[in-house]
């Protein structure tokens, strides 16, 4: 029996005068990988932030591991879900290592002092993200791709149960997109964990996600397994543009006419 990490019931969400969802029902089981697809301005980022508890919903319930979102303290919640933001990190310069180490915050004791295990965890994730040797670099001097991989390393260091990712492939070259998504999938699409990511690239979503949430932008949505949902009809409906699908080397490719 798989555990439901996230359960969403009858969620209504709007931003300004735009209805993002009216009655969204959804649950995410451990071990699964969800992708959110939708046209520009459909509210994918806002939905992600709402699920993370960072933006208020109009009505409905969000539960993590059966417990309501607002019953969690911020620190508890940070142990349960982590977020990869799309906006660029700005402000004060710190080193890459310090920034990645910040991911340990929800696990620190009352004094907020990192243990050797915390340091090792950060160092390991920096290595996995291919950033070894850049530990003492000032974050402001990193390239866009390096910064994105640093953010991924920070999320891996945080080790939440559910990872909510907004465009994890941003700023990455095509090769790195695959490497980083594989890294995320290996860590989060596993027992006790799951991931939910907003993606622009439908091919990547179909390749990596076993479930999809198609968000139309007017309150309509489709949710279910990728196998069932990734059809030319659904994607044409979603993007209001004719789409055809092709199989190349076992991967599905999209062709927008």
């Amino acid at each position, binding site marked *: 029996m798989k555990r439901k990490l996230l359960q969403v019931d009858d969620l209504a969400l709007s931003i300004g005068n735009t209805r993002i969802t009216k009655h969204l029902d959804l649950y995410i089981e451990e071990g699964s990988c969800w992708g959110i697809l939708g046209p520009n301005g459909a509210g994918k980022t806002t939905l992600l*932030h709402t699920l*993370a508890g*960072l933006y208020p919903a109009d009505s409905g319930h969000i539960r993590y591991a059966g417990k309501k979102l607002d019953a969690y*303290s*911020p*620190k*508890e*919640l*940070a*142990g349960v879900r*982590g*977020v990869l*933001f799309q*906006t660029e*990190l*700005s*402000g*004060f*310069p*710190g*080193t890459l*290592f*310090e*920034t990645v*180490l*910040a*991911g340990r*915050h*929800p696990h*620190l004791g009352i004094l*907020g002092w*990192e243990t*050797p295990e915390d*340091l*090792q965890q*950060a*160092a390991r994730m920096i290595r996995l993200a291919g950033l070894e040797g850049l*530990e003492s670099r000032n974050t*402001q001097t990193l390239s866009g791709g390096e910064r994105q991989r640093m953010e991924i390393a920070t999320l891996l260091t*945080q080790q939440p149960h559910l990872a909510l990712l907004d465009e994890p492939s941003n700023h990455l070259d095509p090769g790195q997109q695959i490497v980083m998504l594989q890294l995320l999938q290996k860590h989060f699409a596993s027992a006790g964990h799951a991931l939910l990511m907003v993606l622009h690239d439908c091919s990547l979503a179909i390749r990596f996600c076993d479930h999809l949430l198609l968000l139309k932008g007017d309150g309509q949505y489709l949710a279910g397994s990728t196998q069932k949902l990734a059809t030319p009809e659904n994607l044409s409906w979603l993007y209001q543009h004719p789409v055809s699908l092709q199989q190349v080397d076992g991967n599905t490719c999209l062709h927008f006419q």
Partner: protein
Amino acid sequence: MPRHPLRKSLSLLFLLILFAIGSLGVSLMTGSVSIPAAQLWQLLWHDDGSVQYRIIHELRLPRTLSAFGVGGVLALAGVLMQALLRNPLADPYILGVSGGAAVAVLGAMLLGLPLAWHAPMAFVGALASILLLFALAQQGNWNTSRLLLTGVVLAAGWSALISFILSLSPPMQLPGMLFWLMGDLGDALTPSLPLAVLLIGLVISLWLSPALNLALLGSQRAAALGVEIRRLHIYIYILASLLTAAAVSIAGAIGFIGLIAPHMLRLLAGSDHRILVPGAVLIGAGLLVLADTAARTLIAPMQLPVGVLTALFGVPVFLLLLHKSYGERT
């Protein structure tokens, strides 16, 4: 095995403690009667009935310790405002918070309110100014130049109000008011107040340090990592206002310590608040002690307001910082 990033900063903290103690020594030894180090040590602990003993204990020690406390308090207020606004150019003086406090204190003086009212009035003025700044600068997409402009305009507004109050004041009070406005420690002879405020502020800020570190990453990221960001902001508003109010009600509007001290520390040890908070306090305290020593000895027997000296030193540093931060963005 990775080393803790703060390990190497501990020796720096030790050096800064030496610097702060050294500044206290220099200040106590220097003045119209200079007292050598060996004699100073004796005089600190043993009353030999000499004039020197009375100079040390009745004049120099209270004033030096007041400067130490006020300098530390200003540096701490600077660190907190910089974390709140995520901008290394934030400082209670530049952004008009000291101005707001000064207007409230001058208003209290003009209305003839008793001395005990000055500090609470300064707190109200500082808090009003900081909230006004945040409300004005946060509308829409705000950035460095918008924030600074808002702060500078607020400061200009407060300074107009100050001129207004001064022009209504009786001529007898004017020189004292002006000297106080420029930042002066001549009357600051009760060091227990600034030192107590500094100690309390330091303990709270150290406790907040891990959250302050995350706040630098931005409100959203900090919230996602488990910081109660709204509560943190409220703590900072109140604490920064209290610190600024304490400094202003004791020593007037002394500028730039809150800017220079944290900046020097960032250059030396990065922006981790667990080192930044105590380190900036030590640098700020030491710098103001040295500046005040210079203020009372440079053109002795006349005294300069110490705020003039910190501004002369601080303006070029501020311009350098501004130049650097714009250079990085373009």
